[in-house]
């Protein structure tokens, strides 16, 4: 009776959700590839949409780097290509500000938040915890489509006659609140705000789904402390998003009121063209608090998925158990909690009370501890490992390198006294591009090279991947390392040109080097794109478990089926990191292999 009950319930469940591996649905192209409810397809949709965005965002950076490298030259061919953004072959200042704003917005939110989490949470969570799909496949699809709608609105804003938003990705008022202040603060800013609200809806739908899938849909034996670190990282990422993005919405809603209803949440004592405006009693600092309460956790939303994937990839390719599995989990937890109480380190120079500054300095420096724990664990994991030098592995190592370089400068900036000199200079630009931008991209590349066989059933070309890595790695340091020196010398960020400062003329040559490196790195990414799309169709067929990894996704059929496994979902017996276990024949033991008698007796002690 009891067994009958479970069996039938199982059947009812699988058929109700269309998960039954054995059945074949008649699927049209549209239901299979466009409005799909399958988590693997939605993951790929997030990935490819993110690639499109990354190319757009990267192209923008090339345009403004050309301006910064050659501020006195004219570029008629760019004017022919980009029309209204250029006058007499020179980039317009307004267009420059729109470009940096859009570059930041696209890269931070659309690529490294939505696409990075969206891709790997979708592809990996159900496969690695042993679930047939997400808890709610419909919400999952909606999450993607809200992301698309938000993207379309953001993209449309670029083509407005007044230009896209231009107040920087942090959209501080009063610049962003008063349409009169600059062309981009008009309709461009309105669309930016609308797009971001929809973007948060997408994040929320996705995040709630990821959390409840991880908590509720794990297969038999997959206790929380047997989950791979990727899943742990994606879990905390989702929680950070669920708790911090709504605060951005609150901030944005008040900003929208200031723009449309004439309220004064962020405005006070404004005089435009000699005419005093009826705004009173508001505070622009309030916006900064609300923004950075999201903004700082946001940087961890970007980096945690990459950290999780790197942990997994280093262990697999070094053929060693991850060092300090629990320490890794608790340092993610520590980062999650501390990440919520350091936001004002972005505001040391905004006029906050210096005592408050000291408090935030303290918490900011504390967060370096869990970050350092992770770095030590990665290094110890590969230390004396049986290294398999593969594309995912080198990108993971590149991630660690970037994270160390950029993390160290974070400690400089975290000291409010040093930040007096460094705030709003190129030093900050260098810091966050290395620690967040490039590092997260490296994590993403590592993840793509590693899980490509699982996503598309084929392998990517290794040699192209090595060239891609070499150019990107060296090029990124070439771009961002010199910026530290510019920042120390006081070169301000976000300036259209520094021609008016005699003193910065020494950097003219350096600026050209940076710009050339940026252009090369940008075009090098096409090696990756070609490799990616070529391999989807023509790559070498993947074997069932090409990296000899332990996690469950490598037990699901290569061709990728609805419901993920034919028949029963595998049961889990061990953690994900049984690599090179002494006395074992092969150097890996997948999670679904039962414990041997010897291991059982060991576990008892």
């Amino acid at each position, binding site marked *: *009776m009891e067994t*009958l*009950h*479970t069996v*039938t*319930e*199982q059947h*009812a*469940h*699988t058929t109700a959700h269309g998960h039954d591996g054995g059945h074949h649905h008649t699927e049209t192209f549209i239901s299979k590839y466009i409005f799909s409810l399958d988590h693997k397809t939605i993951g790929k949709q997030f990935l490819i949409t993110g690639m499109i965005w990354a190319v757009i965002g990267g192209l923008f950076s090339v345009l403004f780097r050309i301006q910064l490298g050659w501020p006195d030259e004219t570029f008629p061919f760019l004017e022919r290509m980009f029309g209204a953004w250029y006058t007499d072959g020179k980039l317009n200042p307004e267009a420059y500000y729109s470009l940096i704003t859009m570059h930041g917005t696209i890269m931070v939110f659309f690529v490294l938040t939505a696409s990075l989490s969206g891709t790997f949470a979708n592809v990996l969570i159900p496969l690695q915890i*042993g*679930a*047939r799909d997400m*808890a*709610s496949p419909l919400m999952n699809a909606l999450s993607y489509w809200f992301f698309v709608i938000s993207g379309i609105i953001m993209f449309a804003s670029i083509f407005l006659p007044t230009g896209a938003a231009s107040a920087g990705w942090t959209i501080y008022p009063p610049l962003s609140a008063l349409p009169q202040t600059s062309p981009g603060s008009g309709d461009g800013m309105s669309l930016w705000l609308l797009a971001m609200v929809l973007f948060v809806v997408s994040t*929320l739908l996705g*995040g*709630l*789904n990821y*959390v*409840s*899938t991880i*908590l*509720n*849909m*794990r*297969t*038999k*034996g*997959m*206790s*929380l402390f047997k989950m791979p670190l990727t899943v742990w990282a994606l879990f905390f990422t989702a*929680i950070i998003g*669920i*708790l911090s*993005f*709504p*605060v951005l*919405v*609150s901030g944005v*809603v*008040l900003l929208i*009121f200031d723009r449309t*209803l*004439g*309220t*004064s*949440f962020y405005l006070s004592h404004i005089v435009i063209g000699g005419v005093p405006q*009826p*705004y*009173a*009693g*508001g*505070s622009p600092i*309030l916006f900064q*608090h*609300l923004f950075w*309460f999201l903004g700082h956790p946001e940087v961890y939303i970007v980096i945690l998925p990459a950290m999780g994937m790197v942990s997994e990839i280093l262990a697999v390719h070094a053929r060693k158990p991850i060092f300090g599995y629990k320490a890794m989990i608790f340092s993610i937890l520590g980062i999650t909690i501390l990440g919520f109480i350091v936001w004002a380190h972005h505001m040391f120079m905004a006029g906050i009370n210096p005592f408050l500054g000291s408090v935030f300095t303290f918490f900011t420096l504390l967060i370096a501890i869990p970050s350092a724990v992770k770095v030590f664990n990665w290094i110890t994991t590969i230390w004396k490992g049986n290294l398999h030098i593969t594309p995912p592995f080198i990108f993971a190592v590149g991630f660690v390198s970037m994270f160390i370089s950029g993390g160290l400068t974070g400690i400089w900036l975290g000291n409010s006294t040093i930040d007096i000199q460094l705030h709003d200079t190129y030093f900050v630009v260098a810091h966050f591009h290395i620690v967040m931008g490039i590092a997260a991209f490296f994590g993403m590349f590592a993840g793509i090279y590693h899980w490509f066989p699982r996503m598309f059933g084929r392998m990517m070309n290794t040699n192209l991947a090595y060239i891609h890595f070499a150019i990107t790695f060296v090029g990124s340091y070439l771009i961002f390392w010199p910026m530290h020196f510019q920042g120390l010398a006081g070169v301000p960020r976000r300036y259209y040109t520094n021609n008016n400062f005699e003193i910065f003329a020494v950097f003219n040559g350096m600026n050209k080097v940076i710009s050339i490196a940026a252009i090369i790195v940008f075009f090098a990414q096409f090696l990756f794109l070609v490799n990616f799309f070529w391999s989807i169709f023509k790559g070498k067929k993947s074997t069932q478990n090409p990296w000899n990894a332990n996690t469950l996704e490598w037990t699901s059929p290569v061709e990728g089926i609805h419901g993920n496994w034919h028949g*029963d*979902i595998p049961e889990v017996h061990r953690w994900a990191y049984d690599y090179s276990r002494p006395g074992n024949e092969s150097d890996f033991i997948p999670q679904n292999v039962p414990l041997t008698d010897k291991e059982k007796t060991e576990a008892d002690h």
Partner: protein
Amino acid sequence: MAEVLEIKEHHTAHQLPTPDNGEGGEKSPMNISYGKTMMWYFLLSDAFTFSAFLIAYACLRLGHKWWPNPNDVFNAMPFMGHHKIPMGFVSIMTFILIMSSVFVVRAVQEGHRMNKNGVMYWMFWGILGGAAFLGCQAWEWQHLLAEGMRPFYNVFYEGKDGLTTLWNIHEQGKPMFSPGPVAFGALFFGITGFHGFHVFTGVCLNIWGFFATANGTFEKRGHYEMIEKLGLYWHFVDLVWVFVFLAFYLM
């Protein structure tokens, strides 16, 4: 097959869906279903939205030397003409909303007992309470707007001895700069409006829950978990009101 399904229904009636993946997987840490997990996390998220608004309220209010005394602003009552009853009307509103929450608790209870009519009965009263609350809010807004309050304009200013005084725009005219602190109106309409929007959403969802119950959707499913989830949301909206009430009317 039919027999088997029957057995299944018989078995699962009166009990909530399994919290695990339905194939004998691990249970969630709190042993709750995925739907409720989602709802709880959503409410946490929404709590952060409201906290941000209330913190903005606190910051702006503390940044002002003088702030209107709520007793002199919120003292009108329908059908009472010019009689002033400080806090009278809002107390009634609050009472209505809390009662509505109690009704929904009863609906959830009836759901556990698989009593379809009971669920419908109490949901009905819960919905009515929510709608009545919205009606009250509309009246209060309309009254303040008639007095000249706007999100960008505040007619309650610091009169003699710091007393809250109404600037009568109909008799005294309308100065370009707001007589009282502008933030007062902006925060009031902004935050109570956002809360009202939540109440409105809740009423719509509850109406949907009512009809789904009437159609027997949950009875067929074998459990009324959906009503429980709606209840969670509804209590949350109620709880938020307590804080909004505290911030705007009592302090």
